[in-house]
């Protein structure tokens, strides 16, 4: 069974169409990426799943239940980390986390201290005195206190320093090992690349691709750099090669195609050194957007 299903979801704000027939299926236990730049419709999709927004067309299901009709039931099992953290300024983190936990039947408030310690969060500070990063840490903790089965994370690493990002990813992997499904929305591609197995790419409210992250990268153009033992004469490149450049015994070209064909071609060359540079997810992402 899919933990999260989004079927033909469209959302209009007056005449403006924010989402167009969005379809996403997240399997149980998966870490699923949701990539797109700011304003592409990521948060609108998430907010519709959570029942904050009403869909204009289509439906969203969580744990097999319609999220508009069974909002209370599904929210018991969802941990949500918003992109923008807005809490009650007059509370301190401890009060906020305890208040949040009291909404859930199975929240474990004893985890507050250990998680605050893990993320180095001062629980006695008023929310109004917290930096954006510390508010984010508070939001991470509140999303985990009730042992959620699905974590919906919207730009989770924004505001966290690299050390805290690492701790966050470690914690996320630990939760995932326990069986927690994760829906990870971000415009930071290295984050998606780091933890996600599959990802949907959203552009102007439409899903333009749903791909296995590794396949997504493999499908893309690779940059090949060769150093030959001798300067080549009339070098014939493999099919799929483009942007060929030769300078002395150094040859560079871009390659798009089957890596086996490339490997076979490389064995026919008198190689001194070879470098196959994988595209970053940023390159992949830009390709999607440019095409």
């Amino acid at each position, binding site marked *: 069974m899919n933990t999260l299903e989004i079927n033909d979801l469209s959302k209009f704000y007056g005449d403006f169409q924010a989402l167009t027939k969005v379809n996403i299926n997240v399997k149980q236990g998966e870490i699923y990426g949701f990539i797109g730049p700011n304003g592409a419709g990521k948060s609108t999709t998430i*907010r519709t799943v959570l029942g*904050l927004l009403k869909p204009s067309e289509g439906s969203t299901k969580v744990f097999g239940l319609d999220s508009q009709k069974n909002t*209370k039931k599904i*929210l018991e099992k969802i941990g949500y980390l*918003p992109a*923008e953290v807005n809490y009650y300024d007059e509370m301190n983190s401890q009060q906020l986390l305890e208040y*949040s936990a009291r909404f*859930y039947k199975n929240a474990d408030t004893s985890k507050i201290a250990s998680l605050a310690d893990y993320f180095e969060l001062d629980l006695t500070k008023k929310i109004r005195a917290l930096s954006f990063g510390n508010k984010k840490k508070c939001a991470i903790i509140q999303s985990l206190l009730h042992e959620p089965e699905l974590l919906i994370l919207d730009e989770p690493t924004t505001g966290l320093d690299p050390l805290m990002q690492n701790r966050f990813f470690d914690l996320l992997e630990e939760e995932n090992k326990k069986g927690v499904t994760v829906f990870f929305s971000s415009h930071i591609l290295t984050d998606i690349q780091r933890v996600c197995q599959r990802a949907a790419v959203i552009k102007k409210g439409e899903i333009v691709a749903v791909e296995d992250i590794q396949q997504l990268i493999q499908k893309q153009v690779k940059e090949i750099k060769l150093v030959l033992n001798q300067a080549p004469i009339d070098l014939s490149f493999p099919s799929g090669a483009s942007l060929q450049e030769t300078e002395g015994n150094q040859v560079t070209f871009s390659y798009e195609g089957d890596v086996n064909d490339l490997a076979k071609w490389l064995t026919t060359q008198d190689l001194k050194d070879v470098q196959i540079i994988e595209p970053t997810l940023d390159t992949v992402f830009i390709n999607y957007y440019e095409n």
Partner: protein
Amino acid sequence: MGINKNLYRKDLHRNRRGLFIWGAILLGITVMFTAIFPLMSGMQDVMGTAMEEFYGEDMTSSMGMDQMFSDILSFYSTYYSIYIILLFCIYNAVTATGIIAKEERNHTSEFLYVKPITRADVFWSKFLVMLTNLGVIFVLQSGVALLCIQLFKTTEVSMSTFAAMHFHGLIIALFFSCVGLFISIYMRPKKSFMGVVLGLIFGMLILDAISKMADAVNFLGYISPFHYLGLQISDENFGFNTIPAIVFIALSVTLVVLALNKFKKKDILG
């Protein structure tokens, strides 16, 4: 109808400062207005003439000031029907406009509405906070007024008249609170609805006062709740108006139901 105790307690705590400040002001002016009566009683002739010269006969009569020095209840009623009811209605209506809209205005709605509670639970919990505040202020102000009237009276006062006036006031305040709640759900959450609320309450009070000045403008009062639920005990046949009271309670319930239906369906923009 589901009340979430966690949300109810937190919101009650969150509104305590406003309740304390407005409560203190209302109690303070109640004590002040009743305490000065012994000094002012017996000045009906002098003060009545002075007021008629200043405000005019029609205005003095329309605001219940023509008989205000005759006994403490008339004296208190004059102030209650202008100052106390204004503050009472404004406090409750402003509280009502902010009780739900404030979450969106402060962008805390995203935090609250992803908790496992229904929109109806949120609505009723917050509505109960609004009613609690209304009830607390009403009981305190009425209690202090009753105590002070007993302390400073020079003649016997009618308890049924006092009760009728206060229950009319309570129903008017409840009505304006429900109007405030309704407005806050149907309008985009702005910085504050104070201007709208002040305009509405002042407008209704002034319309009622103008309507009593001459028969030709009587019709102006028909749209004001102050017309149906009078607060000036100097009016002939003053007493508790059961049918208008039921009508305004029914109108309040209708506004609440309409607000709830809209709230359940609306997009929370964060």
